[in-house]
């Protein structure tokens, strides 16, 4: 299976322009015979939306722009980020990721962990998702996360316990901290998590981050793919746009799980019981 990570810089608040950008990158991905293209968080809208959230929100069941992407997804599956507002939930704007394949919307993940501190104000404007789950795709079982979701390692655990072969993270991670390195200091944090999760989940981890600048904030780029067992397969440039393409050998999951028996020996029932105790019985 060939995966392409579209490290793009969407235009803030301009869904029409970003749709064109998506179709353009999908064409590029088709030309290199990719099976799946992954766009970053809020790729259809830009990130720093504030009060624009309601203006750019769309219902994937009916929106004509969304249908254009659905129509083009035969032969090329797509993961993208968008602002979701369903007809049945008017006024609730979710920071969502869609998995689209064969002309169908296979799954929508709504961001659960909305950073709201310091420079971040997502919970001021967005409604909160409440679920992590894996779903079947032509490329095995896949789980989706959005940016900050990935830094709460319980979320990765749920996808791992659910049997994910591929964990896909879409992100709009700003760069913070400069020293002597060739990247923002925060890039290391994402790579560390990618390495650890792929290692101990014996699954692929694909992380698509964006680039570009919004209101003075530079998005760090550095999208990456780790193979099962913590092997770095590819990493995109920091700061610059790129289409990062890599062939994934999905049999590597089986190989890793016969070498490292974490998955076989996993005890989600014990973890669940222990968690229930933690949640229900307050510590004295």
């Amino acid at each position, binding site marked *: 299976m060939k995966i392409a990570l579209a490290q793009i810089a969407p235009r803030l608040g301009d869904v029409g322009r970003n749709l064109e950008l998506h179709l353009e990158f999908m064409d590029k991905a088709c030309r290199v015979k990719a099976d799946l293209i992954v766009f970053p968080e809020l790729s259809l809208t830009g990130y720093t939306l504030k009060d624009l959230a309601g203006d750019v929100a769309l219902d994937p069941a009916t929106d004509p722009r969304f249908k254009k992407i659905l129509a083009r997804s035969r032969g090329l599956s797509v993961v993208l980020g968008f602002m979701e507002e369903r007809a049945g939930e008017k006024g609730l704007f979710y920071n969502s990721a869609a998995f689209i394949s064969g002309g169908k919307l296979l799954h929508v993940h709504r961001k659960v962990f909305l950073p709201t501190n310091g*420079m971040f104000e997502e919970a001021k404007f967005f409604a909160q998702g409440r679920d992590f789950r894996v779903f079947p795709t032509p490329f095995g079982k896949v789980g989706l996360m959005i940016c900050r979701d990935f830094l709460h390692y319980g979320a990765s655990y749920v996808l791992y316990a659910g049997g994910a072969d591929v964990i896909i993270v879409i992100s709009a991670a700003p760069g*913070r901290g400069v020293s002597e390195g060739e990247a923002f200091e925060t890039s290391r944090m994402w790579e560390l998590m990618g390495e650890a999760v792929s290692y101990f989940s014996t699954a692929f981890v694909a992380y698509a981050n964006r680039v570009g600048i919004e209101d*003075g904030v530079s998005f760090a780029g550095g999208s990456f793919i780790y193979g099962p067992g913590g092997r770095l397969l590819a990493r995109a440039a920091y700061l610059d746009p790129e289409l990062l393409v890599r062939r994934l050998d999905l049999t590597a999951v089986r190989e890793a799980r016969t070498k490292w028996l974490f998955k076989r020996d996993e005890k989600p029932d014990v973890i669940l019981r222990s968690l229930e105790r933690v949640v229900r019985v307050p510590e004295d």
Partner: protein
Amino acid sequence: MSLKINPIFVEKVLTGFIRGELAKFGFRKGILGLSGGLDSTVCAALAARALGPRNVLGLIMPYGDSFPAEVRDAEKVGRVLGIRTRTIDIAPQVDAYFAAHPTRSRILRGNKMARERMSILYDYSAREKALILGTSNKTELLIGYGTIHGDMACGISPMGDLYKTQVRELARHLRVPASIIRKAPTAGLWSGQTDEQEIGLTYAELDEILENLVEKRKSGPELVKAGFKPAVVRRVAEMIRNSEFKRKLPPIAKLSPRSVGHDFLYPYDWGR
């Protein structure tokens, strides 16, 4: 229209704001530019009630004698309110500049004049230990009808959340002379210029569209469906969008984990 206000209540909030903010920052006096128009008159009236008339200084800053009626109105406002006024002709400094850098653009000249007035206000603010009271209203802030670092510059903005039609209603309550309430608003950019002519809409029309877009969060298409002209709605929405830079501090390029404006965040009234 539902932009009705209770002027007694609004006066109480705004005089409390002026008095409170000045006290927090150690000022007893307020200073503002007096143009003879509605906004600066209402602001001066609020300041006079909040601080006492003798603690308010109105600077009248005409360009030569190009607007004699406006100067007479401004002087009248000073007398009626009992505040201190001072007249400073900005022609020498403006002419000196344009003699060296000539232009025919009325906009360039108007912006330069607004910034000369700003620089005089800040100089007098320091001389008089008086805080600058902004006179921009919500209508002009939203459509960007003002000069950045010119008339938009101030220490505090008591009127920034009042639409022009609301300022007019407040003016009646504050007993602003009827002639000033009635006359056509002008930015004084050139002789005979009026805001409504230049914007292409009356303030009543403009405020109704703004109320729908901003207060009621209606979309452009919804307004058109409700009977507003598509071209007008589009233009107002564009004016709002294209002037956001006037309502913000410039973006700081973020590098560190704690950057001014991004995640170094303290209240304006920090420790006051």
